[in-house]
Every structure is written in structure tokens, then in C-alpha cells.
């Protein structure tokens, strides 16, 4: 391990780079803003590579740790570090940022600098969330990341963007402010420490654990989002521009799930165990009920949004069964969903840029005019449905395995999603891509260009690589997952 502060670089390069992009000013300098953004995004990704290559897979301790006193008055520290659970998200985030910058290259013609800057700053803030080891530092990044996403949806979004942006903001703010109270309570209980690692060791009585669990649950459940607080997501997804949808699905949804792993399970293990039946029930409702909801959508983006909720239900299901295979499966599912849902939204973006409609009924026979695109779309749709050989399969399979181990009927319920997922994804694919050419607009479609080919190609490779050889990913998380499970099994009462 070298002395380079890679985590700080991963946070601050995109943020400062974003401010620099902002300084390029008006749309006259749009080409400059675009290339500068790409440069910053690439640099931001480059500094995260050592996090993976130099990662020590044999330990569950925090690595690449950085520690600076920030606000000594309240003992708040700039404390960063990653373990096997969080490191992959930093990488995924930096990677997706590049895709988003490329995807917005031509589509965004208005306020280019602000658009790019918003995504870069958001990317830095999200890296901060995944690597913060101080409660307040985490909270600060967690909240601050709402601002750029709010602006992205509101400025570059669709017709109903204002409603969606405000709904998104207020929903998530409500959850996170209650979490703030929980953080302050833990600060008092821990004798004046905001360190998450100290909190992991803090003994708490059951009533306190239950209240803290609920405060965290509201914050994270809104973010995941879990049924029944998911209603902001379809609105936000539909109205957001392509890049916004990609970041929302690929990264932002992971924040809530990550929060469960970093806060709920280790800090209040007894309450988590006690609440597990409820959590499993909520997850199964999300998986099955939302799967049916996805089936009847007529808007492609809405369909993928509901499919995301259903897939995230899988993730929370994996967490609350407290076995290694379920938890690791959930983590793999999170990473995989990052790639796949990002790719799905990019595909829909490709269509939307040409046709300016997301209605499934407006399409049909796209394969005739866009064969290359149809091939990519096919792969991602299959991955979304959980076809073996793609990354989508690994996670779902592991979670179902864990579920069967836990209780056969839970496993059975979870397995239904494989059928549902295949049904809604492939049925949509069939209606959009196959069949006779629906109308004259489809007949005039142009196939994807080099730029689009590049980002879809990279994503396709990632999805396949992870599906065929997931070992490097699971190896990284192995030690930390086992440690987490050991920790959760010990009562804190």
C-alpha cells in the first residue's frame, strides 16, 4: 500500500474538476466543457484503479484509510476508508461517470457546462458516501448529493420534471433528517464519537436499537427504494435525462442498500435480527408485486424503473437472511444491477434521442433499421432477465440459493422473479425491436454511431465478464462479508 490518498483523490478530482468545468461558462465553450469533463471523468476513474489492484483481500479491516480532524468541536473527523463491501462501489461509480459524460456528449446542447459539472460533482460526492467512516461526513455527502441530482432532473428533464424533482428531493430529505437524529443519538451514547467503527462496538439496549433501526430504515428504505416508499422513483426516472436515470439507477439506489450494510446491520444487529421477518416480507412484496406492476407499463423508462425496484428488493432480501451466500449474492446483484440498469437506460436513451418518445407502442421492428443496436439491447435485456452467462444471473442465483437455505417458501417467492423478470423485459423487447416496422419514423432510424457503440460495447463486455468469471468480485468482498456476518451474530444487548 502506498501513501497516496487515493480515496481523497477519487472524491475531490471530480468535484474540483466539476467546478473547473463550470468555470468554462456559457455554451460558446461547450466543446471545451465536454472534453474537459471527459478528461476529469477519466482521471477520476484512473485514481480508483489502485483501490482495486492494491486491495488486500485477506483482511476485513478498512484500507486506504485517511484521517484528519475536521470539526474538533464535535469530534467530527475527515475519516475515509474502504473495505470489501464499499470498494467496488467506488469503482463502479467512477466507471459509470465516464459513461454518463459520453452519453450526454451530443444530446445535451443547453447549459452543457452545468450539466457536466453536476454529474462530476455528484460522482465525487457519491465516492465520499461510500468511503466515509465518520457519521457526519457520511451524512454530509449523502445530503449534498441530492443537490446536483435535483438540478439535473429539474433543468434537463422531461415535461413533468419540476414535480418529479421536488418529490425526489423531499422524499429523500425526510428520510435522511430522521437519520441525522439517530446519528446524534449514537454520538451521545458513544460518549462523543461520530466514528462509524466505534458505533459498531457500541452496546445498545433493545428499545434504543429498535428506534435507531427505524430511523435508519426510513432513510435507507426511501433511497433503495423499498415498497411502499418507492413511488418517487418511477417519476424521477421518467422525467430525468438519460444521464440522470443512469446515475440514479446505477449508483444512487445503491446508497440505501449500502447504508443497511454499513449502519443498520452492524450498529443495531439485534434489532435487525428482530425486524428481519418484516424486511424479508417487504422485499418479497417488492420483488413480486412490483414485478407485476412492471409487466403492465407502457413507458419503457417506467418499466425499467419498476424492474429496478424489483431487483433492489432482491438485494434487501439477501441482506436480511444473514447467510454468506445471500449477502454476497446481494452485493453482486448490486454491482451487476449498476451495469445492467445503466445500460438499459442508455439503450432507451439511444432510442429516445432519435424518436423523442418512450412509449412502447410507438416502436416496433427497430431491428430492421438498427441491427447493431438491437444486438446490444438484446444482451442487456437478457442480463436484466437474469440469463445465465450474464452478470444478472450470478447475483439472483446466489440470493435464491441463500433464500432456499433460509426458508424454502421465501426462496420460492424469490424465484418467481426470474419468470416475471423474463416476462416483462423480453415482452418489452419483443414489442420494441421485433415485429413489423411500426411507423415511418422507425423506418428512418439510423443505427448507432461510433460513440454509442463504444459505451454500449464497454458495458456489454463488463456484463459478460462479470457473468462468466465473477471470482475477482466475490473474492474482494469475501473477507468483509464474513466479518460482517460474524459481527451481526453477536448480540449487543
Amino acid at each position, binding site marked *: 500500500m502506498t501513501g497516496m490518498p487515493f480515496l481523497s483523490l477519487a472524491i475531490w478530482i471530480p468535484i474540483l474538476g466539476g467546478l473547473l468545468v463550470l468555470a468554462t*461558462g456559457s455554451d460558446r465553450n461547450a466543446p471545451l466543457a465536454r472534453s474537459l469533463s471527459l478528461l476529469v471523468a477519466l482521471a477520476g476513474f484512473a485514481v480508483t484503479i489502485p483501490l482495486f489492484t492494491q486491495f488486500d483481500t485477506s483482511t476485513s479491516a478498512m484500507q486506504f484509510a485517511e484521517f484528519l480532524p475536521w470539526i474538533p468541536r464535535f469530534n467530527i473527523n475527515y475519516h475515509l476508508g474502504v473495505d470489501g463491501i464499499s470498494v467496488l462501489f467506488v469503482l463502479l461509480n467512477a466507471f459509470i461517470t465516464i459513461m454518463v459524460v459520453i452519453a450526454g456528449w451530443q444530446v445535451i446542447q443547453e447549459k452543457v457546462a*452545468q450539466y457536466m459539472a453536476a454529474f462530476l460533482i455528484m460522482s465525487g460526492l457519491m465516492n465520499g458516501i461510500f468511503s466515509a467512516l465518520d457519521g457526519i461526513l457520511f451524512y454530509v455527502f449523502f445530503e449534498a448529493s441530492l443537490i446536483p441530482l435535483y438540478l439535473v432532473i429539474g433543468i434537463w428533464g422531461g415535461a413533468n420534471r419540476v414535480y418529479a424533482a421536488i418529490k425526489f428531493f*423531499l422524499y429523500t430529505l425526510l428520510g435522511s433528517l430522521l437519520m441525522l437524529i439517530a446519528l446524534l443519538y449514537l454520538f451521545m451514547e458513544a460518549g462523543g464519537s461520530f466514528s462509524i467503527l466505534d458505533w459498531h462496538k457500541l452496546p445498545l439496549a433493545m428499545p434504543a436499537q429498535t428506534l435507531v433501526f427505524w430511523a435508519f430504515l426510513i432513510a435507507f428504505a426511501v433511497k433503495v427504494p423499498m415498497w411502499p416508499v418507492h413511488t418517487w422513483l418511477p417519476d424521477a426516472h421518467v422525467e430525468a435525462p438519460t444521464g440522470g436515470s443512469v446515475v440514479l439507477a446505477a449508483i444512487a439506489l445503491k446508497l440505501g442498500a449500502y447504508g443497511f450494510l454499513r449502519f443498520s446491520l452492524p450498529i443495531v444487529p439485534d434489532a435487525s435480527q428482530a425486524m428481519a421477518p418484516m424486511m424479508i416480507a417487504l422485499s418479497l412484496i417488492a420483488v413480486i408485486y412490483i414485478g407485476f406492476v412492471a409487466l403492465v407499463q407502457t413507458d419503457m423508462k417506467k418499466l425499467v424503473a419498476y424492474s429496478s425496484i424489483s431487483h433492489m428488493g432482491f438485494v434487501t432480501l439477501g441482506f436480511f437472511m444473514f447467510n454468506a451466500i445471500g449477502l454476497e449474492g446481494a452485493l453482486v446483484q448490486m454491482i451487476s444491477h449498476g451495469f445492467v440498469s445503466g445500460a438499459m437506460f442508455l439503450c432507451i436513451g439511444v432510442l429516445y434521442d432519435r424518436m423523442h418518445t418512450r412509449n412502447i407502442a410507438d416502436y416496433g421492428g427497430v431491428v430492421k433499421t438498427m441491427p447493431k443496436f438491437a444486438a446490444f439491447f438484446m444482451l442487456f435485456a437478457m442480463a436484466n432477465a437474469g440469463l445465465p452467462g450474464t452478470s444478472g444471473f450470478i447475483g439472483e442465483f446466489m440470493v435464491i440459493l441463500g433464500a432456499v437455505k433460509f426458508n424454502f417458501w421465501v426462496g420460492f417467492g424469490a424465484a418467481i422473479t426470474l419468470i416475471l423478470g423474463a416476462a416483462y423485459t423480453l415482452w418489452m423487447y419483443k414489442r420494441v425491436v421485433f415485429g413489423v416496422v411500426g411507423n415511418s419514423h422507425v423506418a428512418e432510424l439510423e443505427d448507432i454511431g461510433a460513440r454509442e457503440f463504444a459505451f454500449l460495447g464497454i458495458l456489454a463486455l463488463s456484463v459478460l465478464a462479470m457473468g462468466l468469471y465473477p471470482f475477482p468480485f466475490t473474492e474482494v468482498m469475501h473477507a468483509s462479508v464474513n466479518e460482517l456476518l460474524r459481527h451481526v451474530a453477536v448480540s449487543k444487548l
Partner: protein
Amino acid sequence: MNFVVPDFYPAAAEILVAVMALVIMLASTFARRVASDLAYGLTQLTLVFAALVCVLVSPNLLAAVAAVISEVPLFGVRLAEIVMGLAEGYAANEVVATFSGMFIGDMLGGLLKVFSLLAVSVALLYGRGYLADRKVDRPEYYLLSLLMSLGMMVMISANHMLSLYMGLEMMSLSLYGMVAFDRESSRSTEAAMKYFVLGALASGLLLYGMSMIYGATGSLELSGIAQSIYHQAANKTVLVFGLVFVVAGVAFKLGVVPFHMWVPDVYQGAPTAVTLMISSAPKLAAFAMAMRLLVYGLFELADQWQSMLMFLAVLSIVLGNLAAIAQSNIKRMLAYSGISHMGFVLLGLLAGVVDGDRNFALNAYSSAMFYAVSYVIMSLASFGMVILLSRAGFEAETIDDFKGLNKRNSWFAALMMIVMFSMAGIPFFIGFFAKLSVLQAVVAAGYVWLAVVAVLMSVIGAFYYLRVVKVMYFDEPTDTAPIRAQGEVRFLLSANGLAIAVLGLLPQGLMSLCAYALLASL
């Protein structure tokens, strides 16, 4: 009876301001042609010098500043040594009372005076162009603002009911005059009338309460009152009765529910430059008044006044936030938002004593002070933006006047966005850390339910701040006139907005300054 010459030294800044007010009055009478320029320049000079004098004569203040600076990396320690060198020979290291115990010189007062004077100075700078556009840029305005500053300073340093009342009236009377300064405007006159009548009523309540406390304790000096209550020499019933009226008077000056009725009307009716003034420095003076009366004088009754403050705080936070949603006038909206912010200040004040345990006091009161100072910084910037959008013959008053600001001027739109998010309590801005420190004090005192109410209302509050961001960023501009403002206003407003962001990234300095001030003065 011998006449003892009082120690004038601790009151050097007050004397400077008083003398300069007289000088400016005379000078502007004789130099008629350049009267307003002269008065403005001299006023600004006086304010800045008085702030400097405050730093020098306030005990421990320089040492505290040095301690804060020494935490700055690189050359911080060296700079701190220089500041400490300055401190030698100036400030005494203890709290001093002078003028027969009517006036107290301590670090809390020193710090609050410095912030108030600077706030008045900034408010004058923002407001000057606005006044000139409306042809009311007259020397009396600057004179009144100096007298108001003097009133605030006396109030902040008061150690006696009478000096406190004197300072309060001096500040209030100057403000009544300033609200009515645009005498052509019937709205301003109406606002001034309302402000005056209600203000006089509140002063009456306060005086009534003071007289009861005097009756019960036999002392008007705050430390004497505290002594008397401590020795249980006072009649408790009369005392608590008096306390109710004192709290009502303080609540009126802070502008918290149910004594808030004047706030929205006065904020809306007053010329924006004056609204800016009312919403900034006087809040610090009102905070000082609460500290002096409740903490210095009536600390033994903390249990009683804390439960009263809790009532006021919850009502203010709930009503302020709910009513702000319904406003379409931005000055009214900011008025209601100010009410809820003052509720948060009260939250800090009420968390000082828990079941007779006073160990929470320092933490709680310094949090409240930090909140008040942060609010003043944000309030200056928000009304500064309203002034920036106004011009001759046009009042930027409704939220819709901010429509499409991002397209007209993305820099100022970004600044306003920072101010709004900061007020909503979103990090990385100072407003978040202000809320954090107050909530921390409340949770430490064991009032978790109070913290929950406060954050739930903050979510509602976020809605109307978001709406301002929404009109600036998501809507098309209806008004395409370019933004014209003098260079110094642009510069200072930018600095003010950026300060909100920078202090949000590094809030430690200001926080520890507030903590030191209370540590040295309690």
C-alpha cells in the same frame, strides 16, 4: 456622596460611535451638497473602526482569535503569535463591569458587537444603491443606523435592567424611523406604525416584568438579581410572574410565535434596504438580550423559562415553516423563514440546564449563538439578492421575480441557490452545521422528540426554499433586464455567498470562537 470617575475604557467603542454620530449630524448640516456621501463614508468608517476597537478592548477576544487562527495549517501558528503580540497591553483578561455596574465588558459582548457592527456595515453597503434609486439616500438614514448600532451595543453590554432597556429603545426607535424613511410610500408608513405600536406594547410588557423582578429582588443589576434569587431572598410567585413578561418582551424582539405578528408585515412594508437591516444585526442584539436577562440574571429560574422557550420554539418552527409555504412575496417568505430560524435559536437556549445539571450550558448556548451568527450571514445574503434584483422603479418582491435567473446571470443564481440550500439546512453549507449544533445540544439535553419535530418541520421548510431554486433554474425568465449593481455590491455579495459555502466546509473556526466567548463570559 463622592463622584467616582467611571472606567471609560471598556466602553471605548460605544463612545466612538456616539461621538461620530454627533459629528456626522453636524457635518451633514454644513456640507449640504455632499451630505449623503459624506455621511455614508463616515458611517462606514465609524462602523469598521468601532468593530476594531471592540476587538481590542474586549477581554480575551484577541486571544481567542489567535487560538482559532493557530489551527489554520501552514502559517497559522506564526500568525497567531502576531495576534497575541497585539493583544498585549490592550485587553484585560477578565470580565470588567463599569459605570456603577451598569455596563459589562466581556468577550461574549465583544464578539456579538463585532458581528453586529459588521452586519450593519454590510447592510448599508447593499442598501445604498437601492436608497439612491428611490431618492431617499439622505444623511439622516446613516445617522439613524449609527444610533441603532449604538443602541445595540449598549444592549449587548448591559448588566443592568435600565441600561438594557435604554439600549433596546434606542435601537427600536431608530428602526421605527428607518422603516418609515421612505415617507412617500404609504406601505412603509403603515409598516412603521404597526412596528411602533406593537414594539411599544412589547416594551411595556418588558418594563412591567422588570418592575416585578425589581420588586421581588430589590435589584436592577443583573448580577444582583441573580444573587438575590440564589439566596432565596425573593418571592418566587412575583418573580415567575415577572419572568413571563420578560420572556414575552424578549420573544417580541426575536420575532417568535406568538409575538411574531409584526415580522411579516414590517419585512414586507419596509424598504428592502431596511428589511435587510432589521433581519440581520438586531437579531444578534436580541440574542444578547436573551442571554443577559435569562442566563445572567435569571439563571436560577432556568426550569421555568426553559419550558416557556420550548413552547415558543415549537410554535415558531411549526408556524414559521407552514406559513412560509403559502407566501408568494419573497420578503414575506423570508420573514416567516426567519421566524422559524429564531425558533431554532431558542432550541439552543432551552437546552442549557437539564434537571438542575448545568454542564450542558456552555454547549447549548454556544450552539445557539453559532446559529444566530450563521443566520445573520445567510439573511444578509438573501436580502442582498432581493436588493440586487431591484432597480429604479422596480421592486423585486415576488418569488416570480427570480424566474430564470440562471439564464440571466448564472453566478448570482448559484449564490442564491447556496443561500437557499444553506437556509434549508443542506450540507456543505453553514446552515447545516448551525442546525447540527443546535440539534446536537437538544439531543444531548434529552429532548429527542423536540429534535424530531424540528427536523420534520425542516423538511416542510425545504419545500419553499426549493421553490426559489426551482424558479431560478427550471423556469424561463420573464424579466430580461440585465442586472445592474455597483462593483462593490457585486463583490461583497459574492464574498457573502461564498462565505456561506466556505464556512460550511470549515465551520470549526466560527464554532470555537462562539464557544470561547461563552467559556470566557459565563
